[in-house]
């Protein structure tokens, strides 16, 4: 099948089959209900479970802290919390955060219909208590409880080269969102020039300024370059990477390793209680910049690193989980 030319009514990805647009005259194609259930399952599992790579990172971090320390007691609470959340199907953290969907699909995928359906699923998951009503009008202060409004949830679409639909979801709490930072180099306060050493100073400053407020031990996503918008966007897409992956770029890989090692020497520790684990991982990417601009952008993800993903089969059901 030619990518991007998926026919509407025959076999192929559910991309074009769950269309609930007015043009279909209220007819609900068979894939819609399946996709709806798949999206609700994705939200439920993302909110109530941690992916295996994150669980592994937390377990290995626990073993670095000395017994009887406050840091160790934080990890015990974390592990108990993760087990409880999954066994009770309840949110790991009450702040179910920004709802970020990352969709890769053929060009024929009906994005508008998907957004409507995803919004419906988000509202349904909110009623179930898997999401907190988090969408607040900044002017009136009104929270209508649906979790759907201007800018929420957030969708990032990408055209896939294969006729397959993958949907990834990140739930990012406000506490860690607030400690994200963007630096414009050179930065005189930090003595940070326009080079990797300057980036290092900026990133470590962000980790220092965050202290325990972003719910350490966290993971940081870093974007070197780009503009103010793409810097934050791409620093966040780093959270789609498995924590145990290796950066294919040897320079960025060495940078990530250095940041992780250096941050863990700061002694901030879990919850800012002191200890050896301030970060679980650091993930970096680079985007071309303008001659006039040199941004370094840091997004912080708390230990409650809620990220999942699904690949859909042709009927809109979950073919498999990604993490």
């Amino acid at each position, binding site marked *: 099948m030619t990518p991007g030319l998926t026919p509407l009514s025959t076999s192929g990805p559910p991309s074009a089959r769950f269309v609930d647009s007015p043009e279909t005259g209220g007819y609900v194609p068979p894939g819609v209900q399946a996709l709806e259930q798949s999206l609700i399952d994705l939200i439920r599992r993302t909110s109530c479970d941690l992916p295996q790579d994150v669980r592994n990172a937390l377990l290995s971090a626990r073993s670095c802290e000395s017994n*009887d320390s*406050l840091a160790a*007691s*934080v990890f015990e*609470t*974390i592990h*108990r*919390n993760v087990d*409880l*959340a999954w066994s*009770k199907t*309840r*949110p*790991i*953290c*009450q*702040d*179910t955060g920004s709802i970020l969907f990352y969709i890769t699909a053929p060009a024929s995928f009906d994005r508008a219909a998907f957004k409507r359906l995803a919004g419906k699923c988000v509202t349904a998951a909110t009623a*179930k*208590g898997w*999401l*907190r*009503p*988090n969408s*607040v009008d900044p002017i009136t*202060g*009104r*929270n209508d*409880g649906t979790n759907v409004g201007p800018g929420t949830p957030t969708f990032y679409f990408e055209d896939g080269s294969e006729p397959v639909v993958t949907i990834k979801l990140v739930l990012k*709490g*406000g*506490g860690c969102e*607030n400690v994200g930072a963007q630096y414009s180099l050179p930065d005189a306060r930090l003595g940070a020039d326009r080079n990797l*050493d300057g980036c*290092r*100073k900026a990133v*470590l*400053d962000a980790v*220092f300024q965050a*202290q*325990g*407020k972003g*719910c350490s031990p966290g993971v940081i996503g870093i974007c070197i370059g780009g503009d103010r918008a793409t810097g934050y966007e791409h620093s966040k897409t780093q959270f789609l990477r498995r924590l145990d992956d290796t950066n294919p770029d040897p320079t960025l890989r060495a940078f990530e390793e250095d940041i992780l090692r*250096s941050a863990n*020497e*700061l*002694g*901030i*520790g879990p*919850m*800012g*209680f*002191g200890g050896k684990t301030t970060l679980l991982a650091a993930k970096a990417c680079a985007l071309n910049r303008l001659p006039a601009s040199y941004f370094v952008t840091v997004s912080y993800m*708390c*230990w*409650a690193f809620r990220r999942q993903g699904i690949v859909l089969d042709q009927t809109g059901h979950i073919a498999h989980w990604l993490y």
Partner: protein
Amino acid sequence: MNNPKPLQTPLNEERVRELHVGDRVVITGVIFTARDAVHKHLAAGGYLPPEADLRDGVIYHCGPVAVRGDDGRWQIVAAGPTTSCREEPYQAEIIRRFGVRAVIGKGGMGHKTLEALRQHGCVYLHAVGGAAQVLAECVTAVEDVWFLDEFGAPEAMWKLAVADFPAVVTMDANGNSFHELIRMGSQTALARVLHASE
């Protein structure tokens, strides 16, 4: 590590002043959630229903996930702390005006709050951020809720009965802040890490 110290609400000044940075505590009794909207409202002199009696009480920086059952009763299904530093502009005044004895949150607070803790006999207690299930397990009943329509469920003031709610004293009534200590230590470590690479 020593066993946690039990705290029963309402608290009193003497009990609170005995607590020191690093002490682990467990709270039993009643706590009131209050976060950004309620703090701003109260600090500006806003109305607080008399039933929400904060005197010698405990404020919890928390926006819970609350679900209303078919019988109309509320259930708290997730209830970890939110970042406290956003309440720094308001907290000292609220401690003073209402006679609050303990504030539970995460991430610590600043000098103004630390001074209010010392002056009025109050402590800051740190709960584990993100531990929404472990902490929701300690909530035994939802006793009341205010400001639900005005501020929405996460920002409402919930009166919660709790049993053995765990926290650590990180700012005490004697002028000590664990957060300040960690910050200073990490500042020194950061200078060392940056210097080593030059």
